[in-house]
């Protein structure tokens, strides 16, 4: 499925292949891809015809083939490069770029393409190897006693003694004390927050209105 992409890629490259050196030199159109349509130059806002629509939704992208997604990715990439170029040009002249929401549309589309490709990759890998396509994670315990997930990393050489990190079931003295004090601190923070909430709820309108604090009684 996804692994036949190299052939697709090479075919895509083959279609783009340079026909002749002379023909390539004369094409200024390739550099034009970095710039917006000339009708949009110097506009505060684009005309309705040129305004962006919506981003591709994930459901629409799921209907597309891998090669279509691959092409769409490059379309989005070029569009994003164009937008970055235009933004830099506008910023250098201290102007606002017209319709900056185009960035969001392109970025959303790209994120969703990645999402869909990940789904497909994941399905194939789960079927064939039983593992997900997401990067592997390890559970490790830090010197202060915190246990958390960390992405696994591949190494050329096996680890030296004491280099590899593990999850530790029983903490040593320092880590144990750290964890004890940490939970205590977190508990007190939560307690104070709850107190604040109660105090805010108990506050009456009069207290706001007359800027009055708690009752002050002197001879009691």
């Amino acid at each position, binding site marked *: 499925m996804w692994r036949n992409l190299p052939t697709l890629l090479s075919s895509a*490259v083959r279609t783009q292949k340079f026909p002749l050196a002379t023909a390539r030199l004369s094409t200024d159109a390739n550099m034009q891809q*970095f710039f917006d349509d000339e009708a949009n130059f110097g506009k505060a806002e684009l005309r309705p015809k040129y305004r962006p629509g919506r981003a591709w939704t994930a459901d629409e992208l799921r209907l597309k083939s891998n090669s279509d997604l691959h092409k769409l990715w490059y379309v989005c*990439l070029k569009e994003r490069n164009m937008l970055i170029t235009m933004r830099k040009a506008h910023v250098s002249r201290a102007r606002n770029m017209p319709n900056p929401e185009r960035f969001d549309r392109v970025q959303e589309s790209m994120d969703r393409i990645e999402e869909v490709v990940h789904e497909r990759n994941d399905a194939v890998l789960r079927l064939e190897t039983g593992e997900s396509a997401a990067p592997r994670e390890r559970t490790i315990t830090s010197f202060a006693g915190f246990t958390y997930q960390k992405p696994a990393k591949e190494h050329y050489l096996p680890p030296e003694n004491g280099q590899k990190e593990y999850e530790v079931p029983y903490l040593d003295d320092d880590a144990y004390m750290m964890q004890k004090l940490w939970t205590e601190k977190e508990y007190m923070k939560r307690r104070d927050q709850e107190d604040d909430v109660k105090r805010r709820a108990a506050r009456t309108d009069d207290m706001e209105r007359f800027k009055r604090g708690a009752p002050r009684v002197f001879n009691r």
Partner: protein
Amino acid sequence: MTSRLARLWQPGNPQRRTFLPDFWMAVVESPSVGRNKLPPNCVKFEVDPRMSRHDIREYLTKIYDLPVRDVRTEVQMGDIIWNSKLDYQYRKAMWKDEDKKFAYVFMSKGFTFSFPKMFEALEEDIELVKAMKQQEELKDKLNERFANRNRRVGNFLGS
């Protein structure tokens, strides 16, 4: 993350390919006069700081189909904002802008590129409108003291 991270490369493995690159490149304007002027077949890009020269060459030739001949890169350090500028010994950095990477890409002979003039028409227009307005305002004021006076000779003639 679209897929698994690439495994470390070992000799004999196939070349690693990127199917969905997320690098960005943008054309930047370079001065048209002075010592920083570039030859016509050279284009200045601002690129994703993760890109190497080789990446830039591949990106431009494969995605944009440009006749790249040579790529030179420059990394520009971002500005640092200090809490006190002149106290060199004890000052602290409050903020540092991101570093920028620029690529000067030399295309093959005969290729010419000049940055399109995006704001020229608009700027001219603004200038023109301003000038017209000023003239309108000045028209009455310019020779106010001398021209267009009510030419009365004086009171002693009794008029």
